[in-house]
């Protein structure tokens, strides 16, 4: 059975449906990422798992027990906030010890076991030399580690992380991502990570839950989500630059810029669709060339191509070329519902 089971969970704030019927199962030891644009309900969903927000309807169970009506301290969850929410008037030791002291009666901790746990956890996160410092004396990366140590010290069933990397500068972030993943792997803790950053989501998640407008759009591994999007929202939300989306009669079809290449590069032209492509502008991005242009007959829709720099095809601006997309890289969506539709019969209709 899954560690966390969420069924038809809803949260309405007056007329706003922040979370609108979410069903989700989280497995023991998995790194689950909830991804979506801001305002999609991902933080509200996490706050309901934590017990900070009372659901309007639905049920949450953790470890087989229904926790829907329980306060946070009886759920066995811990949380790292985007701001880290370190207690500014306490040193690092007291910050990490705080949840232990708050639960000392239920869990029968004493002074010595608290000290041992704090020191072990701090050692694990390599902050044991900072125990006497105040939060304001720490760097961003150190603060993040203290927040994670404080969340881990009680050995929770589920660790909830609300965009914990977004306050770090870009250089530190990649490093912190790698460390966080390592740490989760080695401690085998179940982690739920909320973010709006698709690179973080792709890099960290065992599975990704894509949310929009309070509803789950798709659940899957990073590869499933990227290669096999369930609907137009998922298809265009992931990927940078995002998927080209062109309209046809009753449907739309999309293809990713990196799959849209000069025909001469295509090794299997029988299984590819050829487009006449007018190149308007080319950006040289180092590893790639980003091409802006129009597909013939669809001049109202800007279409992008991402051509690796190391393929030696010259692309001149304001010129016409033949570009190709492999049939399997063409995705079709219903024009009205945005849902993915089977490709075979539609490929002919193009």
């Amino acid at each position, binding site marked *: 059975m899954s560690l966390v089971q969420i069924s038809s969970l809803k949260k309405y704030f007056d007329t706003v449906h922040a979370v609108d019927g979410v069903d989700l199962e989280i497995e023991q030891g998995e790194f689950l990422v909830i991804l979506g644009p801001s305002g999609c309900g991902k933080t509200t969903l996490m706050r309901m798992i934590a*017990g*900070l927000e009372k659901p309007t309807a639905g049920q949450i169970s953790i470890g087989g027990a229904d926790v829907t009506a329980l306060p946070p*301290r009886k759920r066995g969850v811990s949380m790292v*906030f985007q701001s880290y*929410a370190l*207690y500014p008037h306490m040193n690092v030791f007291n910050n990490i010890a705080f*949840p232990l002291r*708050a*639960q000392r009666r239920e869990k029968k901790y004493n002074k010595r076991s608290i000290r041992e746990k704090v020191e072990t956890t701090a050692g694990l996160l390599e902050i044991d030399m900072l125990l006497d410092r105040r939060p304001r004396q720490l760097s961003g990366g150190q603060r993040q580690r203290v927040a994670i140590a*404080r969340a881990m010290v009680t050995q929770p069933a589920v660790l909830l992380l609300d965009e914990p990397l977004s306050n770090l500068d870009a250089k530190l972030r990649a490093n912190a991502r790698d460390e966080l993943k390592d740490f989760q792997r080695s401690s085998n803790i179940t982690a739920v990570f909320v973010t709006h950053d698709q690179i973080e989501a792709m890099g960290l998640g065992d599975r990704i839950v894509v949310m929009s407008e309070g509803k789950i759009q798709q659940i899957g591994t990073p590869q499933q989500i990227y290669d096999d999007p369930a609907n137009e929202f998922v298809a265009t939300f992931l990927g940078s630059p995002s998927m080209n989306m062109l309209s046809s009669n009753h449907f739309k079809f999309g293809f990713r810029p990196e799959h849209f290449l000069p025909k001469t590069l295509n090794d299997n032209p029988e299984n590819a669709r050829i487009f006449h492509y007018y190149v308007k502008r080319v950006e040289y991005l180092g590893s790639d060339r980003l091409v802006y242009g129009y597909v013939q007959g669809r001049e109202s829709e800007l279409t992008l191509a991402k051509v690796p720099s190391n393929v030696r095809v010259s692309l001149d601006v304001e010129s016409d070329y033949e570009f190709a997309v492999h049939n399997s890289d063409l995705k079709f969506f219903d024009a009205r519902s945005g849902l993915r539709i089977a490709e075979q019969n539609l490929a002919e209709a193009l």
Partner: protein
Amino acid sequence: MANLALPAFPLDNRRFVGLLFLAPALIYILLLVGFPFLLAIAFGFSDVTVGNTDLSFVGLRNFEAVWENDIFRQVFETTIRFTLISQVFILLFANILAIIFTQEFTGKWFARFIFILPWATPVSLAMIGWLWMLDTKYSPIDYLLLQTGFLGPGGLLSKDRNLFWLASPDLAQISVIFVQVWRMTPLATVILMAGLSSIPTDILDQAEVDGSRFMRTLLQIKLPLILPIMVIALLFSMITMFGDMTVVYVLTRGGPVDYTRVLGLYSFQVGIEGGNLAQGAAISLFAFPLLLAMAIFMLRTASRAEVR
């Protein structure tokens, strides 16, 4: 950037405009705080009276005379005692009320509104109200106690029909302190409420997820975080109360005997009512170094307790 072709216009001058904006505050401080303060110092070192307003320098004579005066010493002691005792209750009540008023409950707006009234009412008006409440013969409090059998023949509190709120030495002092607490608690509460609502919600959510319950969150998170603001609130109400004369002037005129005579009132009685401006000024100046030291000490404490 000023256009050189145009003649200089005064409002283009940054220094001039800056001064213009500062002027109202500066004029207010100079005229209504600075000038009277300097005048009080000048009076304190002279022999000026209401009858003879020539300022002739007499050195420390006024201060020596005041310090030798037994009544002054008692007044000084009473002022400090009243101030300290009332601050304890003000802080206690303000903390409790601020915590209550920052919780969610129905009718919160109305409760807050009712509660702020003592502070919004003009002092003299409120004191006349209390004068009636605490009246020696017609006090409604006495009437209620009489009806419930606490007063009158066979009563638990007194055989008499009245408690003499403002006429018996002990009760008069308690009454004055009580009314001061009633008057000052709202402001302190509002200041503390501002402090409490400035605590980031993330911190409080974090404490909740960490398993902290109401009392732990209050004592270990909320109160330490609003400590600097609490010191400011304390400083405010202490200084206001130390110099106040309205409450006792309306309620007791310092009586019975000298039991409720405080510094502000005594200075007024000697200097204005008694006509001895020089001594009155000297009396009020005694409070100055004390208040100054207190203010410096508390502001330093506040800035040291400031975290972030």
